[in-house]
């Protein structure tokens, strides 16, 4: 009667139950008692006051599960408070619907044991797939819980078995490896015949970690796991579920994966200072800086890297010295270079700048340099006078006057436009001088020689034909100009400024004769034609004979022209000649006779006012040829002083 093996507590429960039963069924007698006791014992066996006790007090279904779609079992919790309540008569009844009709009878659970405590196991004969079931839990006759389901919905497979792994490959660095994990489906699931289709989920983690990494579900029974570190140990587990179901089964046992150790020659993956990168970036940065430096200071670098090609220097002549303007020194230097002299200081430039009067005079009347000179201020004229310090120390042959008058030596004979004008006339004057000298001296040899510098000038320079032709053209051009003395002021001659009068007017040296209306060198057309006919235009040389022919006529003209110099008061230009002529007119008779008298070849210079303004004495003076020749027509003051008496 007494339950076997109960605990003390259980014993008290039994006694209590018996007492209640006895009290309840006092009438029934002793027959009912065994049945009650039997039930009580059964319920006692079922009762398990363990930790799973439902605190709410009511039995409930926990889950129903089919592992292989062939059987299923249901579990519930026992909600009985330990001790007090009647633990017995928890029953499970089921009903299944077949052929569109529910069977009327609830059937009781066929197996309360096989699935453990508080469970009901339905074997394959009781299991029908795709058939709805309803189960209910009764306790002491009263339904405590009810549930309906279909078996295919409660499938939760058993865990896979037979996990193993194989090494697939090891990375080249020797750090990572891939493995292939294989397993077998749970043995009770008939996957082979296709009755149930399972899909599996693999999880792995390092041994130290707590979080499992999941992979996507697969339908096959093997799966590769990539990129495992060789120096770590891993655990792998697999669980399965029926395809298109949501609930997974239990996990399999964890598989311990111990990968082979790394080879000692494997490179470490530790962070190393990236020397290589630093070197590369350093070189790059330096290169960038270098380029910036090069391109920013281009000139200096260029000078350093590519020194400029030195300009050829002329030996012995210092351009600065020429600029400085110590004429004595320059002269001595020039004297050294005998042959180079004419070409040296007889630059083509100032000859080049001689403008030809071939052009229309109307053009020249507009904004000519002469006009500009005329219109300029006093200061500007001063500037003009004092201007221009060109580099090469070209000196003119006939500029002692300028030196005396505090001009920069190199100025006047420079190839400037303002100065070039007188050059042209200078050429004329040369011609004139030549003519005069030649005319006066029977020995034309010396005269040309003395004048040779000028003639040489005339000869050797290429533009001399231009010069000559210029003179001729001026002759021609001057012819219409002569007719209009008033327009003489507008004649665009290059006149060399020799002095500035206190009144503020500029004294021109060579242009005097023209301004005065005389063009001593401008021979009348007859002379021109005569000269022209004899001249060989192409020739750069002006022969003495030719010159003589011109000269013969010229002085006459010159005398005539000089006879009445018309000093135009309106002219701003007052040339020395005009002054002298006026002075001569006023009272100075020196010039007149000098002008009328034929000038010998070698004459002494009476008055040196300007390069052109050489008033020659009638008497011929022995001139130191050498000096003249050496200076190539350039006569320094000292030399002049020597020459002059």
């Amino acid at each position: 009667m007494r339950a076997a093996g109960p605990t003390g507590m259980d014993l008290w429960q039994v006694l209590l139950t018996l007492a209640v039963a006895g009290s309840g069924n006092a009438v029934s007698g002793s027959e009912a008692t065994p049945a009650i006791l039997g039930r009580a014992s059964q319920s006692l066996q079922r009762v398990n006051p363990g930790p799973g006790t439902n605190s709410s007090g009511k039995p409930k279904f926990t889950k129903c599960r089919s592992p292989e779609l062939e059987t299923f079992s249901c579990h519930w919790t026992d909600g009985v408070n330990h001790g007090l309540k009647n633990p017995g008569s928890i029953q499970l009844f089921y009903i299944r619907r077949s052929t569109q009709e529910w069977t009327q009878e609830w059937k009781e659970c066929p197996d309360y044991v096989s699935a453990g405590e508080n469970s009901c196991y339905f074997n394959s004969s009781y299991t029908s797939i795709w058939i709805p079931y309803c189960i209910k839990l009764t306790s002491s006759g009263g339904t405590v819980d009810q549930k309906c389901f279909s078996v295919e919905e409660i499938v939760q497979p058993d865990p896979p078995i037979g996990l193993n792994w194989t090494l697939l490959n090891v990375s080249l660095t020797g750090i990572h490896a891939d493995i292939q994990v294989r397993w077998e489906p749970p043995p009770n699931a008939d996957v082979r015949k296709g009755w149930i289709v399972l899909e599996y989920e693999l999880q792995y983690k390092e041994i130290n970690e707590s979080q499992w990494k999941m992979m996507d579900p697969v339908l096959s029974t093997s799966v590769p796991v990539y990129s495992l570190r060789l120096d770590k140990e891993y655990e792998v587990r697999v669980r399965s579920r029926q395809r298109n179901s949501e609930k997974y089964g239990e996990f399999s046992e964890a598989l311990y994966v111990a990968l082979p150790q790394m080879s000692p020659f494997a490179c470490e993956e530790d962070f190393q200072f990236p020397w290589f990168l630093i070197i590369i970036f350093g070189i790059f940065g330096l290169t960038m800086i270098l380029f910036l430096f090069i391109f920013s200071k281009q000139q200096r670098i260029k000078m350093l890297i590519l020194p400029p090609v030195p300009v050829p220097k002329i030996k012995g002549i210092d351009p600065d010295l020429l600029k400085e303007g110590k004429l004595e020194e320059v002269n001595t230097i020039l004297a050294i270079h005998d042959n180079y002299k004419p070409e040296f200081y007889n630059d083509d430039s100032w000859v080049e700048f001689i403008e030809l009067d071939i052009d229309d005079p109307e053009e020249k009347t507009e904004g000519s340099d002469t006009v500009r000179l005329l219109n300029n201020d006093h200061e500007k004229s001063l500037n003009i006078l004092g201007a221009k310090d060109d580099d090469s120390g070209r000196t003119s042959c006939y500029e002692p006057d300028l030196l005396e008058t505090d001009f920069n030596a190199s100025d006047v004979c420079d190839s400037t436009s303002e100065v070039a004008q007188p050059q042209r006339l200078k050429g004329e004057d040369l011609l004139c001088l030549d003519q005069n000298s030649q005319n006066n001296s029977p020995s034309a040899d010396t005269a040309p020689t003395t004048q040779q510098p000028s003639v040489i000038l005339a000869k050797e320079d290429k533009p001399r034909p231009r010069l000559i032709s210029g003179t001729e053209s001026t002759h021609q051009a001057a012819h219409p100009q002569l007719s209009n003395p008033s327009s003489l002021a507008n004649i665009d001659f290059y006149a060399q400024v020799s002095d500035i009068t206190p009144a503020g007017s500029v004294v021109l040296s060579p242009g005097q004769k023209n301004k005065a209306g005389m063009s001593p060198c401008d021979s009348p057309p007859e002379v021109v034609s005569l000269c022209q006919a004899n001249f060989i235009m192409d020739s750069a040389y002006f022969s003495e004979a030719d010159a003589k022919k011109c000269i013969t006529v010229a002085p006459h003209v010159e005398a005539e022209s000089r006879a009445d110099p018309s000093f135009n008061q309106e002219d701003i230009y007052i040339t020395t000649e005009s002054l002298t002529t006026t002075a001569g007119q006023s009272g100075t008779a020196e010039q007149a006779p000098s002008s009328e008298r034929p000038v010998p070849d070698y004459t002494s210079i009476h008055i040196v006012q300007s390069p052109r303004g050489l008033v020659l004495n009638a008497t011929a003076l022995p001139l130191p040829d050498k000096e003249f020749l050496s200076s190539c027509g350039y006569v320094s003051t000292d030399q002049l002083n020597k020459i002059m008496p």
Partner: protein
Amino acid sequence: MDDKGWSVKAGSLLPLLLLVSDLLLCQGVASLPICPTGAVNCQVSLRDLFDRAVILSHYIHNLSSEMFNEFDRRYAQGRGFITKAINSCHTSSLSTPEDKEQAQQIHHEDLLNLILRVLRSWNDPLYHLVTEVRGMEEAPDSILSRAIEIEEQNRRLLEGMEKIVGQVHPGVRENEVYSVWSGLPSLQMADEDSRLFAFYNLLHCLRRDSHKIDNYLKLLKCRIVYDSNC
């Protein structure tokens, strides 16, 4: 004498010829190359037909499961449909095997015919399901697209099964028996709750039946093609 001998020979030759032709036919059925779908008078091997049928049934079951889950998630939460799902499916009248033993015991011709019946039974409901889901307000595209796909695949599976039946049982042609579906009015009910329950029920039944067909076909494939040596 000669005539008798001839006749005897002819008599013995004829079954021999039949046997040979039968063997040839069987072998030929099993080993003919695959021909493109839609080709007339084309013999595809049984293995390929079963492979295709299994693929289709597998696919249909996946779609119907997803569709049911989607519907359940969207509309059926908290309505307690599952407790009411007694599942009076219209195909329940068909006596299909209810577990593995029964499925293995049934003759495969019968099983094939059952499969055909179930597939035919679903033609109509699937068609109406598509139209009714389209008519739902805020018709979820996931459900609608799947319904359309299932309907098409079901038709293809039916054709495939008929081909299989034609090969396994040539000449045997049963009447086209199927269960009539009468659930259309319930799908069109004005009451939202009832209508949703009707949908739920229909989708539940669809999932169940697709699972059934998938299992049957796999069993059959193992039995017929691999001779139970899967």
